């Protein structure tokens, strides 16, 4: 019998599974498909802007104290040291998996890394391959792209970086340095660079154009399965610090992260069933007994003692809405915290620093990360929730997507391992 079924295979779902499996639980993940990890930067954003997008955060863990005071229902405010634990566990795990992450040189500071358009994006932990891009370092940058790679524009990046006081210049190399193909996306290019011969060609070309004292920014395509070796070898060959810059989806750093986590989960005996779209459930009293997923014949029942919902909110498909203004949670139809009516969902400006209220909608939880209703009463005795599904946080606006995912996954998972009656 499965102890815990986790619904959702994003960062929250995978990390919750890891936390529970390490604690000895028999865990299974069911998910409709693969999501936000494949679209974002592959970094761990803890808190970049708070309380609005106009206010950059330099030290997220310090800022959390203000946040906890000012917004008691925010997911970060419900944690009990779980954020630190989650980040530490994450770092240790990634070290083990050969995909190490690290933070800024001054511990506790946010990193400020070049974005694909040349802005400075705040993040707390980045994979090693991105670290040399920290804009708090002084070395001038050479941003290198590939002609024909339509998802990366080095001149644009260099110009915007320079305008912000970070000297950068740009260069374009021919795409046929690394592939004979004309049509590839970043994941396919990264796979091509798993091959040493192709890497060597790229390395030689880079060595040719880099100037002493420069660090080189590349699109995030330096290897997929063999990323660690690919990156180290390339950097050694070029003789200058390299850093990856994430691109439009698919996010190669995100794919590397997901693959590493899934491999570890497989080793821990956690079965991950993708393509399982949960479309129903059965509860007896206040306990969910099974959920069922769509299949070619009859729906497939999944039974467990406990269930953890990590379906990702509006972005992940965990929350849906329609033209009447109705908003609902798509698995258990849990009560949601939402703006009072559709007229209040959005602000007029897309880039409004205060964001759009509908994106703060979600499932409200108690301190055990169990969903509660408007009166604060727990809805199910054996259901927990984590990640972007939770209410009271717009983690894209805040740049806290992965921080909220990891911390709440850790907390919810632990609570699920020691359920309160």
């Amino acid at each position: 019998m499965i102890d815990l079924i986790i619904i959702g295979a994003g960062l929250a779902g995978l990390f919750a599974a890891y936390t529970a499996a390490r604690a000895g639980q028999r865990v299974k993940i069911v998910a409709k498909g693969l999501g936000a990890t494949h679209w974002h930067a592959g970094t761990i954003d803890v808190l970049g802007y708070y309380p609005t997008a106009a206010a950059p955060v330099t030290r997220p863990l310090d800022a959390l104290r203000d946040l906890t005071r000012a917004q008691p229902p925010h997911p970060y405010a419900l944690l009990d040291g779980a954020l630190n634990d989650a980040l530490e566990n994450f770092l240790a795990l990634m070290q083990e998996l050969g995909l190490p992450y690290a933070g800024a040189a001054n511990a506790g500071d946010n990193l400020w890394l070049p974005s694909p358009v040349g802005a400075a994006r705040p993040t707390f932990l980045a994979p090693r391959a991105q670290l040399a891009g920290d804009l708090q370092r002084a070395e001038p940058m050479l941003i290198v792209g590939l002609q024909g790679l339509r998802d990366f524009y080095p001149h644009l990046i260099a110009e915007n970086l320079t305008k912000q006081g970070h000297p950068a210049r740009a260069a374009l190399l021919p795409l046929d340095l690394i592939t004979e193909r004309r049509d590839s996306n970043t994941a396919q290019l990264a796979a091509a660079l798993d091959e040493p011969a192709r890497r060597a060609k790229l390395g030689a070309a880079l060595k040719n154009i880099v100037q002493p004292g420069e660090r080189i920014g590349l699109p995030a395509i330096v290897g997929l399965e063999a990323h660690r070796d690919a990156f180290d070898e390339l950097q050694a060959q070029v003789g200058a610090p390299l850093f990856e810059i994430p691109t439009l989806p698919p996010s190669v750093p995100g794919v590397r992260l997901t693959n590493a986590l899934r491999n570890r989960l497989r080793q821990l005996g956690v079965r991950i069933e993708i393509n399982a779209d949960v479309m129903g459930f059965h509860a007896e009293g206040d306990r969910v007994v099974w959920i069922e997923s769509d299949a070619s014949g009859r729906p497939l029942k999944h039974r467990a003692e406990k269930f953890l919902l990590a379906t990702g909110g509006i972005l992940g498909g965990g929350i849906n809405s329609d033209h009447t203004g109705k908003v609902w949670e798509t698995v258990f139809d849990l009560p949601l915290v939402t703006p009072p009516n559709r007229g209040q969902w959005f602000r007029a400006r897309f880039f409004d620093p205060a964001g759009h209220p509908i994106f703060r909608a979600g499932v409200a939880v108690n301190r055990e990360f169990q969903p509660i209703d408007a009166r604060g009463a727990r809805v199910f005795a054996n259901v927990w929730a984590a990640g972007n599904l939770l209410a009271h946080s717009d983690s894209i606006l805040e740049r806290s997507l992965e921080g909220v995912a990891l911390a709440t996954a850790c907390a919810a998972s632990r609570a699920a391992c020691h359920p309160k009656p």
Partner: protein
Amino acid sequence: MHTASWHSVGMTLDECIKCNVCTTYCPVAAVTDKFPGPKYVGPQAQRFRESGQLKSPDISVDYCSACRVCNEVCPSGVKIAEINARAKAQIVAERGIPLRNWFFGRNEQLGRIGSIAPHLANLGFHNPVSRYLAEKIMGVARHAPIPRWSTQGSFRKWFFSTPRLKSDKKIVYFHGCSTNYYEPCVGKAAVAVLEHLGYEVIVPPQNCCGLPMLNNGEFPAAEKLYRSNLEKLVPYADKGYPIVGTSVSCVLVLREEASEMLDLENAATRSLRAALWDLSEWLRDLLERGELDTNFRELKMVLPYHVSCQARAHRMGRPSLDVMTLIPGLDVREGNAKCCGLAGTYGYKVEKYEIAMKVGEEAFRFVRAQGDDVKFTTSDSEICRWQLEHGTHKDCRAPVEILAAAYGLYDLDKRRLL
């Protein structure tokens, strides 16, 4: 193709948020420029298709192998593989079907003709000269692993000429063309297992499920076959008999694909869907109800298990794994390769053979990584079994053969009943 209703697969294009996850995992787009990826040929191109257009705008959708990995990873529920299949059918409706693909669709007739004189048929097809000519004239890749006709007669011949168990517990068996003509041993193993569990096996008249036709865009002919199977099988469904199949792709067609791709849904299709099971799925159900005999002999070996893309397309979990892991001593290792590459009739086509082999390399590598002294591999689909043997030179057995051996009923080496 024109949207026939709000429930047609074409409508699911609206779920697409252009996130690129499908293209990231597509095993064919990963190895060739000829296929621009599932997002492009599926939901994106679908907005440019309408039936009754002067001409179909498509070309590259032909390189979709229908492995359905795209559907598997899509977080939004787009039925990409089905959209692609319907686009191919639109091309065929407009431009006609190449003779080679027409022959692929007549798989059942070819099987029957060859089974009249199997030795001769095998000799005639499986020699370098014939293969060369078939490639040059028909476009059938000379190295692709076409199966051999069984020299022991068809499955049906064996079934109806040997004494079979009678019982109150009845179960219907859908064998499919490949079991009937090429791998009757798989059918025999299935019957042995079912009879061991106390069931009387019924093998009714049945015909090809139509998958080669569906995959090659010959929808009207596929619909005829599907309707014919409905007529033959639904009476048993209505009697309450379970219908099991060992060919995981045939079961997928009969349960879901035919109905979805042909936009055909009625009481009969629903009835068949409710009664039809993949054999492993049915055995797992028995297991969950405590009715499966778990008294297995030890089978001590490492068994790499390639999970066929068609098996995953069922979204029924891993029933073969659930059952095989009960066998003592058996070290079943689940692979994660996306597709063996052969993908129905795809890898048999000369212009696609190399692509298929590149796609399959992931599966071959997985098998190689399990060690040199691996004797057998296993896979639910006959297509995967043939491709794996071709790519790894290790014998591949169906899960039901493993089970039959574990029940002491079957010889895995010689592939025959004890």
